[in-house]
């Protein structure tokens, strides 16, 4: 079992790292948008991808192809992400390549699902929210990354 665990910087990355026990017994590849994050996942394979936000279209395309390349190279059985834009792209590539995908919406989205999370419901096999009041027929609540 090979897992690609991918997230952008800041809170997204910190939340992804808190899921480590979920990956135990699997072969995990981490990916993020800052190359120096490799030091936060010592002992694991790590790849960096260029950052992108929804506001810069050209950068989005560039990042999308880099993520596609990363996925073709690493060939994961499962893709797990805590967002944001690079995670959404990984989920879309996963859908196209028939790879199982999981989106965990950031705990920072306490009032509504993030825009990327909403889009992820169209592509991802499973979408989690970390707030009970945001659960729906498409979005699952099953605890959160803090307790």
């Amino acid at each position: 079992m090979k897992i690609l665990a991918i997230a952008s910087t800041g809170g997204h990355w910190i939340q992804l790292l808190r899921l480590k026990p979920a990956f135990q017994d699997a072969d995990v590849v981490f990916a993020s948008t800052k190359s120096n994050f490799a030091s936060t996942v010592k002992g694991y394979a790590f790849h960096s991808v260029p950052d992108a936000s929804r506001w810069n279209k050209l950068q989005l395309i560039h990042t999308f192809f880099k993520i596609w390349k990363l996925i073709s190279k690493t060939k994961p059985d499962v893709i797990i992400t805590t967002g944001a834009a690079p995670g959404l792209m990984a989920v879309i590539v996963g859908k196209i390549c028939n790879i199982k995908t999981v989106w965990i919406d950031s705990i920072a989205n306490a009032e509504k699902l993030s825009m990327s999370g909403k889009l992820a419901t169209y592509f991802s096999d499973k979408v989690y929210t970390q707030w009970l009041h945001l659960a729906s027929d498409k979005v699952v609540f099953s605890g959160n990354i803090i307790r």
Partner: protein
Amino acid sequence: MIFVTTGTQIPFDRLIKAIDEVYPYLGDLEVIVQVARAAYKVENFTPYEFIPPKEFDDYFDRADLIIAHAGMGTIISAFVKNKPILVMPRLAKYGEHRNDHQLATATRFDELGYIHVAYDEYGLKEKIKNLQKMPLKSLFNVNDYASKELIGSLRSFINLD
């Protein structure tokens, strides 16, 4: 020591200005402030533009209080290290973020009693002025990993259990 951090991605002048204005009230309390590209010109202390990760962690560990934007990275780190944290959410109307999710998170966590929140710079300055009389305590702490419920659900979905 009070460690003030606003994240490194977007400036947060309103927070830095409030700290600058309230600085004279802090007496001999040591304050370390990461300003991260703020346009506001600080008058009362020496700001740090960029603090390398290792030093950042050292300041965080040494701090008696963290003052920050309502970014989840900082909030979770405070929970893990059992540090008191006072946040002021970034607001979209001032161009401090793309939307008001920091306000939503801060409000929820405030209701849960996990963090100290100042909703604007006036509230922030009041809380800081009172620190000598009323130090803020850590309200919540966590271990290194997500809830067992979430880990279990993920493991069963990806067929590891």
